[in-house]
């Protein structure tokens, strides 16, 4: 199924506001070069032809993130992301048949070891024997590995910015290639999700544990953000640490990763957006040929958990030898909620730029803080989430002073209208930001993939800008009133041991 989509009011409105007739032509042609192509197995492709330099970028977005993790196996979505760099059944091995057997033996040995380890009263001698057996199998499996061969091929062929990211909502894989290598992309990216392999799983688990130590156990802000989410969400998986707890990372298995792949990497759950110097006419046959081989699988089950309304304010005080930080966050609806543009406006008025209210008040006029930053869509956007503010206090300022000044500004939004100037700045800035995001192939691919996945239509990227124009001052007061309430609030702060003033 191929259809060309031409742009209509969204772009025109944008252009009239932003530029002149010359630019209108450019943007219209930009849009007219967009092709949506959905395979019979359900995998969605979007191609944006941008005939500048002879390169292209792509992103493959899986509609699965750490919200799909379950207690006891937190961190699995992210762990799978790491496994997607290990190659395929044929790429990254000296002997696919021998390796498949070695991996099966390895997993059996691990499961036996794990069963004993997690037993109520593990037998020490038996455990030691099982661990030794597991290590033998691990060494055996390692003998088949051609290390990092997938990356090696890509790097040799000139791929740039090879990476991936897992968040609470989704997992994204991306890189860029010279435009004469589209078939390499089609072959490798389809193989990656057709014949994945879980080699070096138990070695990689340790790498992810180091990642956890680095991001969350050695940085005061990482630790604080993790405390915020685990405190603000008590039922929804947004409350789980996305990277996983250390003990879950100690017990996660290759089988878990395979099950996760089977369930959540069904083609109908995948979106690939390609942007750059490519032609849909030549790319689509390649996509059909390579990605079309993959059989359809049932769509994964939807997430059922819903966070109950918060009825009591929560506070976390984290003792840390680092410099103090202050975070305050409020529950808010999902990004697909009609009030999304109003939340965008609130965030802009409060924290965007040097004229924003919190910067003006806390940083500039009262010198209480060195910096103020919005925490937007935390830890995800797909389900009801948090909107918050991170304040970096100036030396010698107490959290109490910060809190009072911050709440004054939040309360003012409920009782006084924002100014015409503030509303106009918000709208102008959002439009220019959209324009800037169109500059990079990679950035554009990610934006379009997110909208195609979450909204079912990439054009929402432009329509959402249109909707900003309809935000009124009354909307802002209404939403501020509904959101900035004590029982809806979670406060997380770091204090130093020797500080007497907090909380």
């Amino acid at each position: 199924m191929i259809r060309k989509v031409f742009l209509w009011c969204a772009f025109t409105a944008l252009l009239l506001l932003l530029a002149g007739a010359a630019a209108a032509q450019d943007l219209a042609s930009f849009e007219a070069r967009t092709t949506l192509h959905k395979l019979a197995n359900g995998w969605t492709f979007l191609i944006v032809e941008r005939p500048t330099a002879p390169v292209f970028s792509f992103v493959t977005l899986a509609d699965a993130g750490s919200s799909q993790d379950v207690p006891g196996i937190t961190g699995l979505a992210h762990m799978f992301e790491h496994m997607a760099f290990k190659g395929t059944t044929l790429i990254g091995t000296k002997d696919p048949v021998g390796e498949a057997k070695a991996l099966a033996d390895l997993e059996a040995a691990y499961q036996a070891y794990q069963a004993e380890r997690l037993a109520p009263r593990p037998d020490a001698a038996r455990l030691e024997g099982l661990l030794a057996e597991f290590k033998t199998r691990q060494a055996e499996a390692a003998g088949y590995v051609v290390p990092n061969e997938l990356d090696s091929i890509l790097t040799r062929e000139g791929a740039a910015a090879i990476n991936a990211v897992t968040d609470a909502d989704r997992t994204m894989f991306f890189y860029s290639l010279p435009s004469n290598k589209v078939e390499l992309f089609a072959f490798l990216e389809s193989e990656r999700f057709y014949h994945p392999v879980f080699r070096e799983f138990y070695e990689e688990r340790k790498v992810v544990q180091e990642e956890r130590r680095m991001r969350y156990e050695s940085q005061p802000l990482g630790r604080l953000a993790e405390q915020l989410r685990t405190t603000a969400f008590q039922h929804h998986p947004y409350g789980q640490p996305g990277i996983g707890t250390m003990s879950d990372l100690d017990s996660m298995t290759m089988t878990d990763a395979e099950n996760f792949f089977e369930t959540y990497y069904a083609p109908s759950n995948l979106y690939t957006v390609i942007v750059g110097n490519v032609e849909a006419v030549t790319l689509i046959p390649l996509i059909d040929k390579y990605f079309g081989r993959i059989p359809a699988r049932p769509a994964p089950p939807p997430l059922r958990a819903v966070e109950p309304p918060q009825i009591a304010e929560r506070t976390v005080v984290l003792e840390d030898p680092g410099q103090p930080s202050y975070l305050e966050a409020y529950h808010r609806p999902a990004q697909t909620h009609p009030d999304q543009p109003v939340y965008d406006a609130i965030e802009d008025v409060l924290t965007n730029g040097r004229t924003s209210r919190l910067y003006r008040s806390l940083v500039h006029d009262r010198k209480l803080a060195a910096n103020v930053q919005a925490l937007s869509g935390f830890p995800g956007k797909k389900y009801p989430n948090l909107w918050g503010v991170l304040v970096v206090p100036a030396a010698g300022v107490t959290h109490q002073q910060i809190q009072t000044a911050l709440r004054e500004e939040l309360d003012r939004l409920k009782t006084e209208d924002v100014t015409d100037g503030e509303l106009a700045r918000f709208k102008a800035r959002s439009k220019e930001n959209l324009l800037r995001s169109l500059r990079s192939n990679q950035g554009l691919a990610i934006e379009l993939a997110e909208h195609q996945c979450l909204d079912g239509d990439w054009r929402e990227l432009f329509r959402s800008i249109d909707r900003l124009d309809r935000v009124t001052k009354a909307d802002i007061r209404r939403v501020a009133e509904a959101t900035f309430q004590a029982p809806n609030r979670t406060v997380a702060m770091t204090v130093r041991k020797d500080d007497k003033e907090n909380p």
Partner: protein
Amino acid sequence: MKKLRLAALLLAAGWSLSAAAQVSRVEDLHYPPLPPFAIPQPERLVLGNGLVVMLLEDHELPLVDATVLIRTGSRFDPADQAGLAVLGARAMRAGGTGSLPGDALDGYLESRAAEIEITAEEDLTRATVSSLAADFPQVFRVFADLLRRPAFDAPEVEVARTQAITDVSRRNDNPGKVALRELRRIVYGADSPYGRAETPATLGAIRRENLIGWHAAAFHPDRMVLGLVGDFQRKEAVALIRQVFGDWPRGAAWHPQPASYRQQPAPGVYYVEKPGIAQSSIQMGHLGVLVSDPDFYALEVLNQVLSGSFSSRLFADVRTRKSLGYAVWGAVDSEWDHPGLASLYLSTKAETTGAGVEALLEEARSLTELPPTEEEVSRARQGLLNSFVFRFDSPREVLARQLLLEYHGYPLDWLSRYRAGIEAVTSDQVRRAARHWRPDDFTILVVGPNQGRDKPLTDFGTVTVLAGASAPARPDVDAGRP
């Protein structure tokens, strides 16, 4: 799971038969040649007052960006005023101009969704402006006014100072940055502009007059390079530039001395205690090279072999095989006008600190003992050449590079020379370039908790315990908490 395995076996066996329509091995792919694509060349012109201007039109989107590089930066700061350029740049932007003082400037720009920023780096200060094409002439005039006649509005200077001091007081929260800062201090020397860092004391001592003096001395058209990229017409842009900058007189002749730095290695182990965290940050190295070094291209290839990708040696050995860390990195770095650092980095749990130090030392030694193979060199060189197009795939990137070349006096066709240089590198040259790694000269920095280490740090040399920060001037503020 069982099903997957079976499928894998079947496919492995019957692969070539079932895959007639498409390739089944990367080796079977054939790539058409990359379409010819010349490196875009900005136009260069010089105004009568010495201002160098570079212009590159790009009409894809209705935006224009301009950048000015000014010959001043933290390495030119007087020793007792470390932070002068950093604070000066911040205060200059915050203070606005006579007709648009701080607040008014912010309002003016933000109502047009335009941006002006000024930041000081080590060897240059960068002023940038970005706006919609339609607003550009107007916004550019404001930008020029700010460069020529900043107000340094006194209250705004104080806001900038508070922010700069808070930055300093928080810089010890990131163990990796502490390790790098301390490594630089020891390798370049505490008195070198490349080794020192501003402190609350030096920032506190800078007066508004000093900032005004800093601007008056450095901001002259003959000490600047200006570049424009985006949706503008050449003729109008040149007229605008002449109009706002043409009557700006040249500054006094200025012959900066090259900055001094320590020439001898400073081998040894240095430790900064950082309680309450899970990992040790390990950073080790010595002086690297200049971009103009004859071994520069060979080192580019060698860096790629060592740490250029997930399949490079450091990733394959230290991360994938030994599982010692998530973040691992290393290179012989080059700078335009002074030697960069040759350094290796790893963060690993306290319990594998010793193993981590050993692993990095082993990687450095193995570049000589197990020199890069033909295959490693050819893969690295091929990767650099195949990805070469990404060095000029966006006009903004091209202009940014050309400005730097102009600023540092490098030939403007440097990028073409780079490609030729990489093409010409031989395996022997790469192997010989490994002599730029001298593990016996390494200064080794470890920042982390003081418990649980697998080995005493004394195993790796004489250990010096450092306070949390380098500046003895105000230990109560900066160094009280390692």
